[in-house]
């Protein structure tokens, strides 16, 4: 590939450390990995600061106001001010709280949020840990922070925190299912769960056509995006933090640094979802002229701006609407889509070699991509049409009931007037 700036910086440092610790390769490995982990954590925390600022400014502009502009020029020191505030606020722990669980929960959430960055490929050959089960690791880490939410709600010894924790977990656990089901066609087509391989399949290397997976599977991309937004608890799925509803949900009793860690966990999770979406569906770090990491940053910034845009624009969903959407629309459609994709992938193959190995009709890479895309869109629009029809049936039934009730009221009113006269 072209000039890889990160490899240019990392390779000499790696070589230096291994030379220094040549007497023990294990120690060399540990130190290099530890250093990489510290760098990734620091970068994630720094982007968390930048993202909070960006979000506040952009949401403010969408709402026709300016946003923070007092702390520093254009409000650029707002993240710093926020950080100082978080460090110096008092940590009121309720006397009835369960100490161990209460204190451990924010630590676990922040740790798992940051640990998800270990398998994201930032450049060709640059990844925290070259796991060949990267996709599975990501899903597992996502489930890890869910247990910490229950810990937070339970340990607070507060009715509302507990209720908030239950509802949060019901939402997060529900939206894991369409996420996993929609990653399966991608893994099938790539032939490996490693995220680096997923990116290479979308780039012009090893004879691959360089078509990003969003062109192959637009339905999968859309449902993955929706599930990802619901997983992180952002708007429009942020009924967990709706102040009017349940105070502040599972983090009611937290203040100071522990609350800051919850906050950090949420934003870092959102960033991880954005980078995952870019890696799996938009081609990761692939791009023509600029260094790969710059492409990754550009694409990730675009996707995160989409998240912020959705937050500023869409109203919040109700809790039963949210569950209906998941279990009655996304999951059945995802299963149907998975079945269709698996069958099509075997019937229409891309290369002669594949046809000789396992049979099928050869249509070439672009033909296969087109067939996948068209069938995905058919599933999407068919599902939407079914949902629209079900909605219209329900609406007509409702209208009929309302009309009947209005007529009864009219009748009763005219009777009352007649009697009164």
């Amino acid at each position: 590939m072209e000039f890889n700036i990160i490899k240019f910086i990392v390779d000499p440092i790696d070589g230096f450390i291994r030379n220094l610790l040549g007497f023990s390769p294990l120690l060399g490995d540990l130190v290099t990995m530890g250093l990489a982990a510290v760098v990734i954590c620091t970068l994630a925390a720094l982007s968390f600061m930048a993202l909070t600022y960006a979000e506040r400014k952009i949401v403010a502009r969408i709402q026709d106001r300016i946003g923070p502009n007092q702390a520093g020029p254009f409000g650029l020191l707002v993240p710093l001010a926020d950080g100082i505030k978080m460090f110096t606020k008092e940590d009121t722990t309720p006397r009835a709280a369960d100490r161990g669980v209460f204190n451990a929960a924010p630590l676990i959430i922040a740790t798992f949020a940051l640990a998800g960055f270990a398998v994201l490929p930032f450049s060709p050959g640059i990844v925290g840990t070259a796991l060949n089960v990267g996709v599975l690791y990501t899903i597992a880490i996502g489930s890890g922070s869910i247990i910490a939410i229950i810990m937070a709600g339970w340990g607070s010894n507060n009715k509302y925190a507990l209720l908030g924790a239950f509802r949060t977990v019901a939402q997060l656990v529900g939206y894991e299912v369409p996420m996993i089901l929609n990653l399966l066609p991608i893994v099938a087509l790539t032939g490996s769960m490693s995220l680096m391989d997923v990116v290479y399949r979308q780039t012009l290397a090893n004879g691959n056509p360089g078509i990003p997976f969003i062109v192959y599977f637009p339905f999968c991309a859309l449902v993955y995006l929706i599930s990802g937004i619901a997983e992180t608890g952002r708007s429009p799925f942020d009924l967990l933090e709706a102040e009017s509803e349940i105070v502040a949900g599972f983090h009611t009793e937290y203040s100071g640094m522990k609350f800051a860690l919850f906050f950090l966990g949420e934003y870092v999770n959102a960033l991880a979802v954005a980078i995952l979406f870019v890696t799996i569906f938009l081609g990761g770090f692939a791009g023509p002229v600029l260094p790969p990491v710059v492409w990754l940053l550009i694409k990730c910034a675009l996707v995160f701006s989409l998240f912020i845009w959705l937050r500023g624009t869409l109203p919040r969903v109700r809790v039963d609407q949210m569950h209906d959407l998941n279990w009655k629309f996304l999951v059945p459609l995802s299963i149907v889509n998975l079945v269709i994709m698996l069958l099509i992938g075997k019937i229409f193959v891309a290369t002669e070699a594949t046809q000789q190995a396992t049979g099928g009709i050869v249509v070439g890479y672009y033909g296969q991509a087109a067939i996948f895309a068209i069938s995905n869109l058919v599933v999407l629009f068919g599902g939407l049409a079914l949902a629209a029809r079900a909605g219209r049936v329900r609406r007509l039934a409702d209208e009929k009931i309302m009309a009947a009730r209005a007529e009864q009221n009219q009748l009763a009113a005219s009777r009352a007037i007649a009697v009164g006269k």
Partner: protein
Amino acid sequence: MLVTAGLLMGVTLLAASLLRPKKPSATKADTYECGIETVGDTWVQFRVQYYIFALVFVLFSVEAVLLFPIAVAYNALPLYSVLIAVLFIIILLEAIVFAWRKGVLEWN
């Protein structure tokens, strides 16, 4: 990576605990209830709906874990094997349709 992230976050918490004021008082240590005195026990009744959603999630989670090997080996599988996998998936589709028709997926 987990260890390093945990250590970093632990150090942050430690630093914060050194920097913040410590003035506990009886009112501050009370459990929060929108500004009034707390009423009743803390442990609310656990609605069975949460359990049902968790159960359905476990079902699909196990299905996904069993489908990952098929996905990874997909390029080398003949159509026959994929048809068997599709049969497996259709049985699970039947499961969720059954749950739907029984009215179990309602949030009340």
